[in-house]
């Protein structure tokens, strides 16, 4: 069966994430749009995933806890996990590898942490916008160890993308699925990079505002509508 997905959505925890990107606003917007499965992928953190999972409970939408990690090569990787425990364990590793600088809310916005009622319960003081001191290969190793999955983010872009930064996809990495940005014309893109045809592509919103979130426009094929089948399809 085909399900409509958007696996790259930021909350107000991400630098530059709109403060309206609260758990209830995001989940309800996704339900209104008719999405079947989404992933919450803040920059170098998973701290709003718990509230989003709680809000989504019994609402028929699948929410995958995830993170948009920035490697030391300044490459963005979407890291998805089957459980919040695995995501939190990954976050612990990432936090140990972030620079010990504080966020500057004037420049990058406040990094808000919510509970399931959309109440602000904290503010993350770390500078989440920077790079972790983890190499791409280390990230693949660590995510695989936690049975997670990696989708290189917006590979059509020149900045912060696997292809933009490293020139091409390293063949030693176990990648099946690549993400292109919302505005990318996949056919034109694949005409330019013919060697990428062997990969499966998904399009994601990289939403920082509620209105950025995808409509029912990007689909993946799954056996069943559950996280296990989604991971099978992406892996």
């Amino acid at each position, binding site marked *: 069966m085909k399900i409509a997905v958007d696996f790259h959505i930021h909350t107000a925890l991400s630098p530059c994430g709109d403060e309206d990107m609260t758990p209830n606003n995001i989940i309800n917007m996704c339900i209104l749009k008719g999405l079947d499965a989404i992933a919450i992928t803040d920059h170098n953190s998973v701290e709003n995933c718990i509230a989003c999972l709680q809000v989504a409970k019994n609402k028929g939408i699948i929410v995958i806890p995830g993170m948009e990690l920035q490697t030391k*090569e300044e490459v963005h990787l979407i890291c998805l996990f089957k459980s919040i425990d695995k995501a939190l364990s990954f976050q612990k590793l990432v936090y140990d590898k972030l620079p010990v600088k504080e966020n500057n809310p004037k420049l990058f916005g406040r990094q808000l942490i919510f509970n399931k009622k959309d109440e602000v319960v904290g503010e993350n003081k770390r500078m989440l916008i920077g790079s972790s001191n983890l*190499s791409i*290969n280390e990230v693949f190793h660590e995510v695989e160890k936690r049975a997670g999955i990696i989708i290189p983010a917006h590979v059509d872009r*020149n900045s912060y993308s696997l*292809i933009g*930064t*490293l*020139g*091409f996809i*390293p063949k030693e990495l176990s990648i099946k699925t690549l993400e292109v940005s919302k505005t990318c014309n996949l056919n034109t893109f694949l005409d330019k990079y013919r060697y990428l045809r062997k990969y499966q592509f998904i399009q994601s919103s990289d939403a920082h505002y509620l209105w950025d979130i995808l409509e029912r426009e990007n689909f993946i094929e799954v056996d069943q509508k559950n996280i296990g089948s989604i991971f099978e399809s992406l892996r």
Partner: protein
Amino acid sequence: MQVKNLIEKEKFKLITGEEGITAEIEGLYCCDLLSWVMSHAKGGDAWITVQTHMNIVAVASLLDISCIIIPESIDIDQKTIDKAKEENIPILSTNLNSYEIFCEMYESGLR
């Protein structure tokens, strides 16, 4: 100037094998976005980059780069070093930064 002339200076340390050190350095290029380097650097250039991922070797090999120079004593992945040995691309490590490397090369007659 050849790569080995650089190694003879104390400031540059060869961290790969001897293969390729007689290559002629015809120019100097500095950039860390590999996709940009692929389309702008020239054969014979010595290439300064802070990237240490294995892909730097593939890019250097593709363009016929004379050597890769890693500035500011950045650690280099062992896989990258192994791959460079296999492809006969010399990698040089130095504690100089990019500007200081340019000065050094200019004073050595690369102009």
